């Protein structure tokens, strides 16, 4: 049953001769209705991901980056949430699909890895069973095939003694191992898009290095596109090809990774990059250097924000910022920013 749905959605996309980006998100709004008012967690965000590309969505807590990724897979509870806009995956609007059709996509064409590997794995099932589950569900494998493939997947994510580990339970594995299992599970069905929501935030730095290394290796081997959601600009710089910066539920800037780090145009991005401590700072300056701060705090999302969401903390704020919300404009080829004052054309450096 699920197989036919799966084939329908997959072939429908390819039959239509889909040529656009793999995923195109248009004017996504995810609002939550609460007793205190409507929380505009994501408020009009658009971006796209091409096949095989790594796009990072960055921002601080509460900026809506995780809600964006959950909205794509429709993992938002409705109500109290409500998703509007369009999420085109290979030309099909995911918001038009039935729950059953969505289930055929989740874990198959689009899969997700989460921050906390312990709570995302079922503690009473062996890791082999959990990997096998998706394979049996989506690829119609029998138990034997699924287990063989699970061992293969554990090998792929460099878990030693895969044949033995496949029969172990999540609590018998270390944090790094569990994240590897999560990745194996997510990649089992060869997804076209992998959504990684803070995949290394809960891990120690040496383990984080292992996992990032693994993700890079697997991406070049399997060719999945990655939507990386994180607050860590170091991880972003290492992994992403393009970056979307979010602030208070809105997209404030989008550019290639090199361009964004070299020439940030939105004052928020500039402030954020200045606030990040850099390793090696003591080698350049003698004594202690100061980090640049962004004064103030994030606006309350329960009230509609008039004008630019960053106006209250922006060093370059003027009257227009407080009354008119800036549109996301092209400031240079491939570089977009939502700021009234950001220079429009690239200054030749």
């Amino acid at each position: 049953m699920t197989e036919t749905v799966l084939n329908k959605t997959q072939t429908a996309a390819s039959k239509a001769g889909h040529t656009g980006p793999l995923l195109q998100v248009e004017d996504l709004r995810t609002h939550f209705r609460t007793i205190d008012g409507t929380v505009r967690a994501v408020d009009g965000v658009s971006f796209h991901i091409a096949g095989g590309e790594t796009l990072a969505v960055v921002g601080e807590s509460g900026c809506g980056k995780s809600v964006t990724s959950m909205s794509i897979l429709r993992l938002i509870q409705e109500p109290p949430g409500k998703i509007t806009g369009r999420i085109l995956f290979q030309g099909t609007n995911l918001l038009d699909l039935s729950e059953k059709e969505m289930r055929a996509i989740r874990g198959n064409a689009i899969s997700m890895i989460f921050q906390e590997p312990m709570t995302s794995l079922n503690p009473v099932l062996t890791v082999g069973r959990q990997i096998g589950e998706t394979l049996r569900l989506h690829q119609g494998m029998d138990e034997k095939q699924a287990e063989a493939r699970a061992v293969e997947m554990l090998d792929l994510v460099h878990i030693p003694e895969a044949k033995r580990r496949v029969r172990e339970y999540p609590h018998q594995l270390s944090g790094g191992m569990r994240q590897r299992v999560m990745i194996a599970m997510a990649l089992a069905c060869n997804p076209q898009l992998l959504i990684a929501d803070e995949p290394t935030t809960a891990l120690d730095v040496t383990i984080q290095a292992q996992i990032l290394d693994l993700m890079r290796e697997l991406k070049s081997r399997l060719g999945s596109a990655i939507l990386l959601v994180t607050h860590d600009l170091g991880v972003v710089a290492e992994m992403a090809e393009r970056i979307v910066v979010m602030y208070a539920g809105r997209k404030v800037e989008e550019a290639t990774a090199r361009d964004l780090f070299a020439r940030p145009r939105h004052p928020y991005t500039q402030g954020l990059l200045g606030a990040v401590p850099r390793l090696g700072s003591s080698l350049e300056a003698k004594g202690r250097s100061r980090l640049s701060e962004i004064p103030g705090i994030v606006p309350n999302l329960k009230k509609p924000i008039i004008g630019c969401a960053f106006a209250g903390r922006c060093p370059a704020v003027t009257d227009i910022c407080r009354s008119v919300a800036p549109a996301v404009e092209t400031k240079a080829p491939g570089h977009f920013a939502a700021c009234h004052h950001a220079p429009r054309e690239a200054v030749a450096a």
Partner: protein
Amino acid sequence: MSPDTAVAAAPAAVDVFPAEVQRGRVRTFIRRHPTIALGGFLLILMVVLAVFAPFLGTSDPQALAPARRVRPPSDVHWFGTDMLGRDVYSRVIYGARVSLIVGLSVAILASAAGLFIGLVSGFIRVVDGVIMRIMDGLMSIPSILLAIALMALTRGSVQNVIIAITVAEIPRVSRLVRGVVLSLREQPYVEAAIAAGTTTPRIIWRHILPNTLAPLTVQATYIAASAMITEAILSFIGAGTPPIIPSWGNVMAEGRALWQVAPYIVFFPAVFLSITVLAVNLLGDGLRDALDPRLAKRI
């Protein structure tokens, strides 16, 4: 929604939901905490009935009238009369007094005793093991059996009923308080207070006790509800309140033999008991949700 504004969509103030209507404070409270509002309303209704019982068209609940035995409900006897001709309506209304007094007293006494035992247990490791094993022992006896056994040792009176039920409820409260105390002791703000030179009694008074009261209040409501049921059961089997005092358990016990001919004698006190217990439980659930910071922090 605007379909083809892929990149340059100005985030204008578009609302996915229709605008909110402003409401008054009472309506806001009811919307926010519907269970507290409903439970509180029903409970206040019962308290009013109990307090103003003499002014609510009742007659003497103990007055016998053999001539008017087992009358069905009528405009004179709204809930009918029992086998001794007593007015069931009057007995049920006065019965609210007994139930509420037992519920409230047990809740207060059991909470106070449990709080003390739980604090001692949570702070003094040496006695913790001993106290908790005693509590485990008490908990292994069903609380209704424990109450019956205690009642068998004394004479039936409202006071003794309260004591018997309280003793049976104490272990549960002590365990709860001990658990809360042990987890609070690990809180960074308690460690910061220790580092700031605060003495242990002051830590208990300022940091532990106030943060124990919220879960304890919730537990107290559940105890009140369960005490009212236990009181009714004890009275029903004749091990509780003396039969001349109108309590819902007594009224039901007296109507038991006539269940098939005069079901209203059992029916009305049962309905009142159910409503009161429901009200207290609703209040407890509502308080738990309102006081639980984890649930409250959700968007």
